[in-house]
């Protein structure tokens, strides 16, 4: 079942680069990351790629395959024909370091700008009580493996470096939604999301949701409800207070 596939892989660094052509063996059941590894082992020992788990769990191996943002380890070769040339390029929204490896420090900066979980002051460890139905909404968002594919895809920043200052991107707007929906969190999240993280710049195109390898409904379950909460709150500040207190009981 082995065949020779045509690969084009972007090689270069922050000063520039180009697509390089390779012919490489593919065996039954393999994923794109296997092929990149075969290139390293047999043709190009210094081809740079980031990966860890090879099981879709760590979110390290993000790149673009034929222009689509994907995890290299979860893209099966059987989704392509044997004739097709497969083009692998680094994520576009982040600066290249080398070959398929990009500088994703933007995301870590944004993560640090989201104020942390704020539990009620009087609650001791071991005393936390929450119902499964109440934690499920936030649990969906905590499935996030921080592959940053949604950040790479969102058009607000994909080709607009200038928006990166004001806009935290779907991953971190979702993080704020997660904290807002946490049954025991006591901070005002909606205000933060709108004023400091650019929730208003999102125009709910759902491109982020489409690329999420964890199939998290980022737009429908995090961003839109968050927008609704912000609007409600603009009309009536007591709504926020009320909802927090209600959920805590």
């Amino acid at each position, binding site marked *: 079942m082995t065949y020779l596939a045509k690969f084009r892989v972007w090689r270069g*660094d922050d000063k520039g680069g180009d697509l390089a052509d390779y012919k490489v063996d593919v*065996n039954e059941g393999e994923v794109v990351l296997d092929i990149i590894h075969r290139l390293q082992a047999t043709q190009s020992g210094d081809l740079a790629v*980031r990966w860890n788990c090879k099981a879709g769990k760590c979110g390290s191996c993000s790149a673009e395959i034929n222009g689509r943002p994907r995890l290299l380890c979860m893209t099966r070769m059987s989704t392509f024909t044997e004739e097709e040339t497969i083009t692998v390029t680094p994520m576009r929204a982040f600066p290249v370091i080398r070959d398929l490896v990009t500088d994703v420090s933007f995301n870590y900066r944004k993560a640090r700008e989201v104020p*942390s979980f704020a539990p009620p002051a009087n609650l001791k460890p071991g005393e936390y009580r929450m119902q499964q139905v109440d934690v499920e909404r936030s649990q969906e968002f905590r499935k996030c493996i921080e592959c940053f594919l949604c950040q790479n895809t969102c058009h607000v920043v994909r080709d607009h470096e200038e928006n990166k200052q004001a806009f935290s991107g779907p991953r971190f707007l979702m993080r704020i939604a997660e904290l807002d929906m946490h049954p025991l969190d006591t901070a005002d999240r909606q205000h933060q999301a709108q004023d400091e993280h650019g929730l208003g710049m999102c125009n709910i195109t759902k491109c982020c949701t489409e690329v999420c390898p964890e199939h998290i409904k980022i737009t429908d379950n995090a961003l839109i409800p968050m927008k609704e909460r912000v609007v409600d709150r603009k009309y009536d500040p007591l709504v926020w207070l009320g909802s927090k207190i209600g959920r805590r009981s």
Partner: protein
Amino acid sequence: MTEYEEHRYDVIIIGAGGAGLRAAIAAREAGMRTAIICKSLFGKAHTVMAEGGIAASMGNANSNDNWQVHFRDTIRGGKFLNNPRMAELHAKEAPDRVWELETYGALFDRTADGKISQRNFGGHEYPRLAHVGDRTGLELIRTLQQKIVSLQQDDEKESGSAEGKLKVFAEVTITELLQDETGTIAGAFGYYRESGRFVVFRAPAVVLATGGIGKSFKVTSNSWEYTGDGHALALRAGSTLLNMEFVQFHPTGMVWPPSVKGILVTESVRGDGGVLKNSDGKRFMFDYVPDVFRKQYADNEPEADRWYTDPEHNKRTPDLLPRDEVARAINSEVKAGRGSPHGGVFLDIASRRTPEEILKRLPSMHHQFKELADVDITAEPMEVGPTCHYVMGGVEVEPDTAAAARVPGLFAAGEVAGGMHGSNRLGGNSLSDLLVFGKRAGDGAAIYVGGLQGKYPNATDESLASAAATALAPFNEQGGENPYTVHQELQQTMNDLVGIIRTRDEVQSALDKLQGYKDRAARLTVEGHRQFNPGWHLALDLQNMIWVSECIARAALIREESRGGHTRDDFPAMSAEWRQKNLVCSIDGDSIAVIEQPIPSLREDLLALFDRDELSKYLTEAELPALTEEPA
């Protein structure tokens, strides 16, 4: 003269998995300026892959649970070779460490009364594993990562600098520990993976939290990070490793397609009702219940099935025997020609639970099989077989402080540390181990540094120069071999000759081959330059894998019995004499020396947790008289 960037800290932590992050939180909270160093990005460490859960006797699912029962299960699982003090601290402190995670923001699955839900797992008497679906490791990493961020936010508010007191150096690999003339720790030396530039951390205390060694084996559930760096760093600094012959082969890894062979299939599949079957459709585990476990495991299907809903009145299913037992059973079935088409056995949950239940309890397993193998686990059985999963062996440490043997200033916690799990680790006991001993290592390091009263040891110039020269060697060598070739051969050797079933001749021939790899690895050549160069990285990691493999093979050759993660075909029985001994490895010249060392004995009150009948299966006659009285 080589150039390098230089930093000064009170404590540096090598590793950003569960153990490293928990240690960093402890050190920082004790007032230490702390650096965390890791090979991959922040939040990607191997811990992220853990699925099933964290073992802690909170008693939420069954109020009979307590630390003594957890302790007893741990010792049984480790076949009485565990360091008893470590097992005791672990069982006692695990619940507090888990509850603490909730204050950092963790969201575990809940019981009906709103507490943390706990699930069944192999070797645990009661449902004990706190979990989030089957992605518990991700929750653990993210929670600790977010706690680190929150400490940085506090620092920023206080001093204007988020990274002034606690900083993460991601994608940095440490290649050497730095020591002063007396061998006391003075820091660490490494390189940025991104640029290849060297970096020196000067610090009086180093916590190793580097995880395991699985990449020395061909079929493994472990990622590329698991090259045994911490094990080798400790050895080279003059410390010791114990229990290295004990390697856990998880019974259920994927076997097909070839490229995903080894990827883990979580034990929760069995905890939640899945059963193992051979090609005749027979639930074969009933044929493999060893004598020492007869009292706890059912010998017939109806009872085993009733146990899921009525554990008080039924014995548990043998599908949930400790991992070493299940892995050997699968191995035997396959050898006897009763395997599945791709050389494993069947793991069936589809015929036993509804698709809705499976999707709810095991979403990532469903996803993994669908995406990687085109198998729908709600409709068809999985094919599974043993995979190298965890190393019980590791750095010999002082239980209370996690201080490493023989090297002042060195600490170790998590998978890189040895002793806690004896000859076999129970599922769920690693994540709790990370938290309990991660915290203790951070505290231990802080107390040690406090005791120095500002007099920090200095690394010798020679140690710096030689660290740089060693790291650059593969670029200077002409015409040597490609590191990938040597690595592949090493993996094959370890898999075939020092794997799940071992014999004297095979292990001996592995040792001969290892000598060959050692010679070849001294003359590797890599192409390209220092910037993000995986060939170079592998060339350096390979040295560590060879050291660790030699420890495993040498100890495996010496231990003439079968116990837990060490099975000798030529010595199939467990020996009470061997139980009294640890094998301790250190570097002697350019090879590994192994000595026997008595293991600490169980305190009387802890011995009393077992009945005499059970003890007599493990202990020598000479050890037994102390308890002629039947314990209460």
